[in-house]
């Protein structure tokens, strides 16, 4: 018997609804999201069994990267109508005899973590290119001759006394730098810290 082979019809899938929905989703996300401001440094935190969540709002974050550079980030607190970041910057400027334009204050309000000597802050705020901005992030000075970190923390605490403090330290950072940060915080009457860690569950068993 001769084998009869019929030509196989290629299946015809109408993709129009799928493309429509993807176009809708794309438009939605384009209009509703804004980029997260870049963090000053990439930090690999150590592990711990702690399951408590890091506070998201109303928190002062001190970042310590593995090269022992210290950066600072603080938000506008619980009540977002109070513009804490620009107020703190104004007070710092008063203390250190500088002036900031309203535009610079607004930019500072919208950005996140920073860490540089105060005289370089103006230049950093005025740099448009993000790659050039990264060069500025050299760490906040906190040695005894120039303890700018202390000033920042004092003014932030004055503006927002209820903020919690989180220390996000890299696992390979020297403990003495983190200890110095903790000492400066204790000078400003902060005795309770949150250390940001990754969750890693550990089991302990008693051996008889």
């Amino acid at each position, binding site marked *: 018997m001769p084998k*009869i082979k*019929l030509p196989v*019809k290629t*299946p*015809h*899938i*109408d*993709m129009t*609804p*799928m493309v429509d*929905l*993807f176009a809708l*989703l794309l438009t939605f996300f384009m209009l509703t999201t804004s980029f997260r401001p870049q963090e000053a440094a990439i930090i690999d*935190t*150590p*592990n*711990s*069994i*702690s*399951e*408590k*969540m*890091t*506070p*998201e709002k109303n928190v002062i974050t001190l970042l*310590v990267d593995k090269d022992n550079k210290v950066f600072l980030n603080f938000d506008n607190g619980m009540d977002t109508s109070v513009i804490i970041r620009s107020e703190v910057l104004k007070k710092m400027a008063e203390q250190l005899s500088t002036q900031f334009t309203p535009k610079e204050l607004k930019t500072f309000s919208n950005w996140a973590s920073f860490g540089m000597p105060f005289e370089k802050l103006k230049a950093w705020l005025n740099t448009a290119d993000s790659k050039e901005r990264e060069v500025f992030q050299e760490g906040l000075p906190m040695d005894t001759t120039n303890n700018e970190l202390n000033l920042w923390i004092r003014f932030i605490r004055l503006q927002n006394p209820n903020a919690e403090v*989180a220390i*996000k*330290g*890299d*696992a*390979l*950072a*020297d*403990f*003495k*730098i*983190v200890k110095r940060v*903790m*000492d400066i915080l*204790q*000078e400003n009457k902060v*005795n*309770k*810290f*949150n*250390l*940001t*860690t*990754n*969750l890693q569950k*550990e089991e*302990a068993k*008693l*051996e008889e």
Partner: protein
Amino acid sequence: MAEIIQAEGKQKGGKKKAKKFSTHIDMTPMVDLMCLLITFFMLTTAFSKPKAMEITMPEPDNPNDKKDAPLISAYKTLNILMSGNDQIYYYYGVADPNKPLPELIKTDYSKDGIRKVLLNRNKIVFSAVAELREKVTKGEIQLADTALNNRIKELKKSDKDAPIVLIKADEKAKYKNIVDIIDEMAITTIASYAVVDISPTELKMIGSPTPN
């Protein structure tokens, strides 16, 4: 909805008829599901947020207050000394430079190292807490999370002979070492511990150069 029309084959006489099929797959449900999945993941990435370990430091010593440091009994004290390269040592009691020094024992961060030492010292509290936790997971006792945490805190304070751990780190210790040790305190349910400054005697014990 896939429509696969197949004309049935076998007729009498055993002759096979040719199969005809046309596939027309309607993709709308698939796209609906993808939309749902995207929304689901957008909302649930909250689970992988970074966690925080809470620590409370004692008030810093005011140099104007001439108070004696509170005396702690030497037999309950376990001192942990940490240095660079993940080196960790421990000794019991007090390191008084005028008296013979206690034995310094080297250990490591693994579960057979410092954790074993801590568990051995803290048997009573640890087994009580482990028992309580087991009872709650098995459902023998009904406790809300906060109530459970409070009970565990009470248990930790109940043993009067529980060890007091003093954590000391030299210049070369890394932040990870301190976080690991404080984590071990939580894992082995040690109630009283403190991060204190390392003394010159102890620096000599571990062979670290004394800072100027």
